[in-house]
């Protein structure tokens, strides 16, 4: 009975969005956004009910590529789905109030498909199905920026988003397949645990593949380009796929690979360094005004980096709450940026302390002093970043720190935190970045990195890559294909010449010669015959044969 109820709930959650699309297209009877709100409300209830049923694995009667499809119901994915759905509910609710955020039918359809496949991506117990669902959500995240078919710029955004996410998915696929070789199953839990049986280099490749996939999905430096493009090109509600569903899927993927990271201390160190580096780079590029972040994409990248650090530092059974905290934080930032709701001024700065504080409190018993110190540092860095960002009206107007000076003097901040931060900023500015040598070095290093990696490879990377592809392709076309063509032309010409020559020598010439010889022979014969015929018959010589015949008869008889 219980299983049946679970099946019904799962079917409702998966099928409801798809049915809603059909209903909306066929009947067109009610206002899309309102209808959508009821639908999400119903889904929320269904997911909530499902989360009350406890953790369990479900074997479905379906199979794909001869591998049975299983679902894995656990608290972490269900809680994440709840948060993500709630976010969408809030967005839609606000969009009804403000006409600015209204939803088109095209967006309605894409978001609904994303809801179905996103749900499957969360609860699938089999990696192949999860991968398919992730890939589909990636495609939808890219498709949603395509609003008008005559806008080539939108198509460029589509290409950047689609290719970036696809690259992430391919890295994920590589890791899955490498693991699959050892696990001999596509069951996610068994595959993850089989990582312990792998050799160290193999496992490192697997982990790298997973990490790149996660970093792309969350939008961590240097893979944040697609998220920035999506942010720029989509409306508030339609950004939900890229900004929240995709991020939540990235968070969950990272959550699932924690056992691999914990297999080896050096992996934890690697992930921690990765987190710190990506955070530093995001800040540095923002400082130099090299990357045009929105507030949301900037802070998303920062929180992503902090999550990497957290996973490397703390082994905790409460990670799900931390993920929910980070996801909620993103929601607040987004709502604030879109001016959908008015948040208290210092909530953005306060939340890092609350989220990180609660998490460390939950894990207080297992935390060392060193970890705690690092954690405090990370929390302060995060809050400081938010504080800086809050000072700016537009994120892409220039370097942060120099702008703060102006902003601070204008607003005349009085609170202690701000003064302290200002002092810190001045120290940093004067003692560190004003120093020509250091400043130049850092700037140059950052510029170099920016030009080579962010601009050269990633920012304009897809375009550049396209140009490179084209250059290589053209080169190949000119030299290899062209040469092959030349060789072929040469060979075929030679063949033709050879065959023509052969034809000429052995066929035509020979035929002509034979014909000539034959003609000559016939002519000679004719002449000879003519000559012979001209001669008069000499009867006087007839006695010779007669004599011979007589001689023959004589000899025979004798």
């Amino acid at each position, binding site marked *: 009975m219980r299983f049946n109820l679970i099946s019904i709930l799962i079917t409702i959650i998966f099928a409801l969005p798809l049915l809603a699309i059909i209903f909306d297209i066929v009947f067109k009877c009610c206002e899309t956004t309102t209808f959508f709100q009821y639908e999400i409300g119903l889904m929320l209830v269904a997911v909530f009910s499902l989360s009350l049923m406890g953790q369990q694995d479900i074997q479905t009667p379906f*199979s*794909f*590529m*001869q591998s049975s499809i299983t679902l894995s119901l656990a608290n972490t994915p269900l809680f994440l789905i709840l948060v993500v759905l709630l976010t969408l509910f809030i967005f839609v609710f606000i969009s009804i109030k403000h006409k600015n955020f209204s939803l088109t039918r095209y967006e309605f359809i894409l978001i609904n498909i994303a809801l179905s496949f996103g749900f499957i991506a969360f609860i699938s117990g089999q990696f*192949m199905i999860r*991968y*398919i669902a992730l*890939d*589909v959500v990636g*495609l939808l995240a890219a498709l949603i920026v395509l609003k008008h*078919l*005559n*806008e*080539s710029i939108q*198509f460029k955004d*589509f*290409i950047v988003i*689609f*290719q970036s996410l*696809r*690259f992430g998915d*391919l890295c994920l*696929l*590589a890791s899955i*397949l*490498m693991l*699959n*070789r050892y696990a001999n199953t596509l069951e996610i839990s068994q595959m993850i645990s089989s990582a312990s049986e792998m050799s160290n280099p*193999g496992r490192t*490749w697997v982990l790298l593949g997973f990490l790149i996939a996660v970093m792309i999905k969350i939008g961590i430096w240097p893979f944040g380009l697609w998220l920035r493009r999506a942010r720029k090109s989509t409306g508030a509600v339609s950004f939900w796929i890229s900004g929240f569903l995709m991020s939540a899927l990235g968070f969950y993927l990272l959550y699932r690979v924690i056992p691999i990271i914990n297999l080896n201390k050096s992996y934890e160190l690697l992930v921690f360094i990765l987190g710190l580096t990506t955070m530093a780079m995001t800040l540095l590029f923002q400082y130099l005004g090299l990357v045009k972040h929105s507030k949301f994409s900037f802070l998303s990248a920062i929180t992503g980096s902090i999550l990497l650090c957290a996973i490397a530092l703390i082994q905790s059974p409460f990670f799900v709450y931390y993920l929910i905290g980070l996801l909620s934080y993103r929601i607040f930032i987004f709502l604030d940026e879109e001016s959908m709701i008015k948040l208290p001024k210092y909530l953005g700065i306060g939340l890092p302390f609350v989220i990180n504080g609660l998490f460390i409190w939950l894990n207080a018993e297992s935390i060392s002093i060193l970890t705690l110190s690092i954690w405090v540092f990370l929390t302060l860095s995060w809050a400081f970043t938010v504080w800086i960002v809050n000072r700016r009206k537009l994120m892409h107007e220039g370097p942060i720190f120099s702008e703060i000076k102006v902003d601070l003097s204008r607003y005349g901040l009085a609170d202690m935190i701000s003064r302290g931060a200002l002092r810190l900023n001045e120290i940093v500015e004067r003692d560190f970045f004003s120093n020509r040598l250091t400043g130049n070095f850092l700037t140059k290093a950052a510029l170099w990195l920016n030009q080579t990696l962010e601009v050269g490879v990633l920012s304009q990377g897809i375009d550049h*890559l*396209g140009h490179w*592809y*084209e250059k*290589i*392709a*053209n080169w*190949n*076309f000119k030299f*290899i*294909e062209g040469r*092959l*063509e030349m060789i*072929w032309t040469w060979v*075929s010409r030679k*063949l033709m010449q050879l065959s023509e020559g052969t034809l000429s020598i052995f066929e035509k010439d020979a035929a002509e010669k034979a014909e000539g010889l034959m003609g000559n022979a016939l002519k000679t014969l004719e002449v000879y015959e003519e000559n012979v015929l001209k001669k008069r018959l000499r009867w006087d010589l007839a006695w010779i044969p007669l004599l011979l015949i007589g001689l023959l008869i004589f000899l025979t008889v004798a």
Partner: protein
Amino acid sequence: MRFYEVLLPGITVFPIIGVVVLLIWGKAKKSQAAVIGIISEGLALIITLILLVPLRRNGVVLFTMPWIPNMSISFTLSLNWLSLVFLLTEILVTLTAMIYSLGEETGEKMSSYYYALLLLFSLGMSGTTLAEDVFVFYIFWELMLLASVLLILIWGHGKTRDKVALKYFIITHLGSLMVLVCLITLYVNIGSANISVWMDQAQALSSNTQIFLILFFIIGFSVKMAIFPLHIWLPDAHTVAPMPVTIILAAAMLSMGTYGILRFPFALFSLENIQSFAIWMMIAGLLSEVYGALMALAENDIKRIIAYSSVSQMGYILFGLGTLTSRGMQGAIMHVVYHAIVKALLFMVVGIVIDVTGERQVQKISGLARRYPWLSVCAAIGVLGISGMPPLGIFNSEWMIFAGGFDSGISTVLTVLTLIGSLLTVVYGLRFFGIVFIGEIKPKQLPEKTPRSLLIPTMAVTVFLIIEGLFPGPLLSWAIKGLANIFGGTL
């Protein structure tokens, strides 16, 4: 002889009857000739489907008739799971091309001969997949080439068609001659022309002979597969050939090379000897994949873009075969089928684009999505399909091929490169779609609608592509059984 055994030669006999009728009725109109062609090919399809029942029961359907007893040559046909995959693909592609022909100009003149040659082309491929006797195999193999050359020569586009036909003939024939050398060597050494006998005795040949034969077989069949750098016949032949012939060339004929590799070197010789070629096949596959994709990116002629993508896709297949693992080879067999469907779809789309715009250069075409939404949906699904986007079919086969790459343990780096290289397919696919279908409408003067006779088969293939991707079970099980036909339980 049982009833179904007598039915088997019907797959080759009905097209022959169709050819004879068409040749006798030389002045038939195009629609009349098409009906005869489609009925003949349709009957071949029906027989194939009927034979599924005994095939499921017995695992093989065999027909044999003495031909040249003194030389141990007989007219023997055999339908097994491996040949079934290739046979069905080929017949379905030919049928699609014949139906598509109705909507376009090709074959308006000399229609009877056009459809007769299409039937002969298909007959060549059917015979190749069914032949159990190498003599019969080679006759059908060459018939396939001759028919296609004549189709290009007579109905091809442009003034260069005679040169292109000659180039196509010579290069593919060189490959065929390499295969012939191997066939004669084996025939002389074993003393029989029956492939089943070869399967039992070929492994007794000396290791050096086996290696020589494997090398020649692989190169010979790779020419047919259009693997880089043996592909140089393909872009021109695909471009010059009339669209229905291009569809058959790309979607069906290329796969005959794959069938040849599976049927001869893989089935005949010991795995130890084949293994020495595994990494080279994988490298050649990777090179072909990347090179074909780069060429597709550099091209501006829409027909050539899709033509070069065949070089790239054949690379995946060779890579899958080179892994020598069950998953890799199953993936390669599945890829043949999925590639056939996607390639047929993309060429049909390109055919419609050329038909409505009268242009072939991408710079002269854009924004068609606004005017022809259904066509653009088909194109988008085709592009996503070839990019390996789930749940469209190629995703399934690529998954298997890559899994096979990792399973083989030959080179993880090669597999990762092949996997990441597949991103290039997305790049050229999206470039093609973006330029042709997005943006301002160009050229300005366009017909209001696409011809229904072209669009309907295109949409049918699109639906088929989606269904095939969603339900890969039967195809996978055929591929598994097909490999069992070759390797037994040794893989």
